[in-house]
């Protein structure tokens, strides 16, 4: 094992968009399914039946939050698998039927969507990647205008993981429904912050991942509306109604369901808590650090439905994001940057590029994403430390 403390010295965690800690109540719900309840849900005897019952209950819980039927839920290994299945399933089904296959998506999707779209494009699928406005919003009218006779799927992320933009999904859903085209949404970043009722959103496919809402890593769910054209990918046994072969990860599935139910129950309070910290943090950063601008939509008060309650993303001129992240880490503060300086030439975030942030500002971007355990005192500490760190880094360059 390791001699390093597992928290790596992190005292103030401000990267909840990357992952969240497992809620102790979620862990409690999961543990018996690794100890007493280790049966295979496909087995006929008692231990198997008990595991099957736990699986069924978890599926019903998830379906309850999404407002769908339990058999419309497919458990996956997480957001990436869910997004891949949501894109490949409908489009490969369309290709198998013959004729054209066209996908509409946006430039600010997660790589799990964009790279799956590129893969499909190599396979002959036509892809339209819509631009977004300077706050990251996709125009529903542009979605409608992009629809072709052979459009077989629209995929628009519910809320953006980098800049927190919440898309007008229900409006896009109404367009998709009127044209009879399935709509997928990557709700990985939205789950826990936004309502997930699939009928209200007008979506036919919806991806979530448990570790973004205080559940375990390695487990997710994909909602697939009954009758949606799908070509399932993973071959093997008959699990998940012949849609996703492989023995179910029962404990993790119970964890996902428990975490989702709790997140949905606590959503309003969680958002109010995060929003207050977020607005304090944004105002403080912009006031204390010269030449700093907010990326994404401005905060919109207590009923803000345009920016995720927990998302802060700023561009700080004259500093490099990685060095900022390391400087914060040395103070025990966990944050992330939009620039991945991996080759000497920095790899600017495709999201920040799509909203028109110049490359030299992307380099100095800093994302701070809040969670339920953050406190006003932590935000005050960050606001006390950051200006000095930025000043030091700016001094080292010029």
């Amino acid at each position: 094992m390791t001699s390093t403390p597992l928290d790596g010295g992190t005292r103030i965690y401000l990267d909840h968009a990357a992952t969240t800690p497992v809620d102790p109540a979620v862990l409690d719900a999961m543990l018996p399914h690794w100890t007493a309840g280790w049966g295979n849900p496909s087995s006929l005897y008692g231990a198997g039946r008990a595991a099957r019952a736990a699986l069924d209950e978890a599926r019903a819980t998830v379906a309850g939050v999404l407002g769908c039927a339990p058999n419309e839920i497919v458990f996956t290994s997480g957001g990436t698998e869910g997004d891949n299945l949501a894109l490949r399933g409908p489009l490969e089904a369309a290709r198998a039927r013959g004729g054209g296959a066209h996908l509409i998506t946006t430039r600010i999707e997660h790589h799990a969507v964009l790279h799956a779209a590129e893969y499909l494009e190599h396979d002959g699928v036509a892809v339209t990647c819509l631009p977004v406005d300077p706050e990251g919003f996709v125009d529903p009218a542009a979605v409608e205008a992009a629809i072709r006779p052979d459009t077989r799927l629209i995929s628009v992320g519910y809320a953006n993981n980098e800049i927190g933009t919440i898309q007008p999904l229900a409006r896009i859903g109404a367009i998709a429904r009127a044209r009879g085209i399935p709509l997928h949404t990557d709700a990985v970043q939205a789950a826990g912050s936004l309502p997930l009722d699939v009928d209200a959103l007008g979506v036919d496919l919806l991806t979530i991942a448990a570790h973004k809402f205080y559940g375990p890593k390695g487990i997710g769910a994909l909602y697939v509306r009954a009758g949606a054209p799908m070509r399932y990918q993973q071959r093997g046994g008959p699990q998940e109604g012949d849609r996703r072969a492989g023995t179910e990860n029962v404990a993790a599935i119970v964890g996902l369901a428990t975490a989702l139910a709790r997140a949905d129950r606590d959503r309003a309070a969680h958002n109010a808590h995060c929003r207050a910290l977020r607005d304090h943090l944004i105002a403080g950063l912009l006031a204390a650090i010269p030449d700093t601008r907010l990326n994404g939509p401005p905060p919109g008060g207590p009923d803000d439905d345009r920016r995720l309650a927990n998302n802060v993303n700023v561009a700080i001129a004259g500093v490099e994001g990685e060095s900022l992240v390391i400087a914060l880490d040395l103070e025990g503060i966990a944050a992330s940057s939009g620039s991945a300086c991996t080759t000497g030439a920095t790899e600017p975030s495709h999201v920040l590029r799509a909203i028109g942030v110049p490359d030299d500002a992307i380099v100095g971007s800093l994302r701070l994403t809040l969670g339920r355990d953050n406190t006003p005192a932590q935000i005050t500490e960050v606001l006390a430390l950051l200006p000095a760190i930025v000043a030091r880094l700016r001094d080292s360059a010029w």
Partner: protein
Amino acid sequence: MDAVYSAAVLDHYARPRNLGRLPEANGRGVAGDLRGGDTQVEIAIRVEAGRIAAARHRTFGCSATIAAASVATELIAGRAPAEAAALTAEAITAALGGLPPERRYAPALAADAVRRAVADYRTRSAGEEG
């Protein structure tokens, strides 16, 4: 964090040595390019009596680049210009106790800036003599 950067990298990053301008420099080298927000290292040297009497750097980039430039100024201090010009990226990496493979550009930039500073010194001193 521990797995990513060595203690020496973090130390040189948090407390960069020989940081800042060197007004009395007689050799200056820049590697990298700031346009588009890229990484840049500037090394300035003061050569006296055939030895590098002072070396300073200014760096815009990731923590590994700042650490590489910092340690490079230490490695060339007191050396003859020819010795400094022979400083390799590998020697910088070794002095930092290693770097992740994806950060290899950092010591390469620092070594390049040193070479350019020595070349600039030679050009300037040739000009003075001529």
